[in-house]
């Protein structure tokens, strides 16, 4: 049966949640070290490390333009400059700064200017991933599509349609039945993000009472 979806808007928060919960949909063998890492006048959305130990910066935007590109490049430069600090902060997983830093920008659209600009950077692996969010009455889905990467010297220009790397994440539409905890925000702290559960996650606990009952009968 063909499932019909319609293109729909998505909030940045939800997009980040999807990415955070499915890091392998963006990059294989990739571990998240930190999120919302505050740096000089900016913030790294996700800082990660790949299987070889190279640093991975993920920047998430609704639309990627020159400003977001400059901000992303600044983040990479800051990371290189702060290598000692970073390795002291994340002693569990040591980043090998001698390896090329990878910059992944995720957005719903990329301007031509920043695709051209990215082609001029040869010491940073830059990858642009375009997302498309889809919805129908019962489900939602997101498609991640790599539209540019400069990793291979042979592919210095935008990759062709047939080579596109497509990844689709299907998820049940979020229905939060858990009561949200009371949030008391102190004046000087940043508002914490409370990540809610998906209907699928809540459903994991559905048969808990039955399992308890069965075990009770077995015990008696």
């Amino acid at each position: 049966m063909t499932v019909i979806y319609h293109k729909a808007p998505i909030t940045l928060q939800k997009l980040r949640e999807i990415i955070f919960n499915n890091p392998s949909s963006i990059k294989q063998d990739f571990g998240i070290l930190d999120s919302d890492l505050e740096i000089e006048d900016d913030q790294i959305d996700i800082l990660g490390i790949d299987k070889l130990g190279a640093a991975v910066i993920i920047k998430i935007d609704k639309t990627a333009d020159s400003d977001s590109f400059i901000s992303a490049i600044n983040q990479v430069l800051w990371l290189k400059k702060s290598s000692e600090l970073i390795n002291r902060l994340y002693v569990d997983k040591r980043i090998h700064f001698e390896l090329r830093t990878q910059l992944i920008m995720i957005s719903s659209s990329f301007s031509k200017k920043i695709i051209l600009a990215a082609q001029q950077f040869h010491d940073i692996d830059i990858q642009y991933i375009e997302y498309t969010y889809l919805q129908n009455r019962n489900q939602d889905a997101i498609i991640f599509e790599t539209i540019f990467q400069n990793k291979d010297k042979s592919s210095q220009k935008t990759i062709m349609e047939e080579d596109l790397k497509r990844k689709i994440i299907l998820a049940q539409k979020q229905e939060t039945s858990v009561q949200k905890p009371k949030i008391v925000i102190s004046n000087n702290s940043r508002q914490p993000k409370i990540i809610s559960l998906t209907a699928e996650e809540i459903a994991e606990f559905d048969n808990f009472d039955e399992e308890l009952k069965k075990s009770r009968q077995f015990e008696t």
Partner: protein
Amino acid sequence: MRTQKRLGKGLEDISSVFLGSSKSPDAEKPFQPVQKDNYRQIPSRRICIIGIDNQSYQDFYLIYYLANTLSQLGIRIAIVDLNDNLLMTKYLKQSRSIKVGSSQFSSNIFDNRIGVKFIAFDRNIYDNETNIPKNDQLITELIEIESKADLLLLHTDVPSFYTLIPKLKQSVRDFLITHPPEKNKLINSYKTIKNIYWNIPQAKIGMIVSSVNYFYEMDISYKKISHAVRKYLKRDIFKYGFLFRISEKNHSTELNSQDMDSNWVDCLSNIAQNIIFRLKSDQVGIPQDSFFKRMLSLQK
């Protein structure tokens, strides 16, 4: 004579410490107060205990006895009440075993007869943005306590935890979640775990199932949570143990472990052993920053 039990694989029973048996060598060893200038060179460890069953006295019992036991084993402990309404402090203060007023700041810092420090972290006093001026002496005392302590045992309920995330993010890596074997509490527990990992990817989370009536309740609860955490968050959680439900007749404000049910004591002993094991085995990833400096926004 009570038989010694082994609840954890390969771990010795130290429940005699909880029972205060005179035969226990550890219990006989008097607590050695730390010399005034004996400051630690390495940062103290911090374990944040999050009670899903909001403000349950069972959690207060757990923390109180855990701190006492670890203290008698030579670990220098400070308990920090991070709950918005400081209910744990109010509860513990009812006990005669706690010396109120040993500190210059008697309403916020106090200790018990074996030297466990209790800190009521009243955010109305410490918050930067409030109009109440910061008390420098109080801050100095907090930082001094931290510098001498081996372990800070923090306690918070879920609503307070969510407000504290930005500060805990920089200063705490070890979390322990306590919840009873009830479906909604399990979901809430899973949600808390998800939020910890979202904000603190390096976190290490352990689980204690409290208010257990039958052993299988703990087993099913742990399996459910760990399965969901593995499936959706691709992470593991550590099993620290469980606590039998404290019957109403044993629930007194005297905090006298002599009257406690021996099964409960065994459970607590097991949890203490797991904590010691974790503290000894996992030395990497400890935040170097001062916890109180972070909490007081003195360190950015």
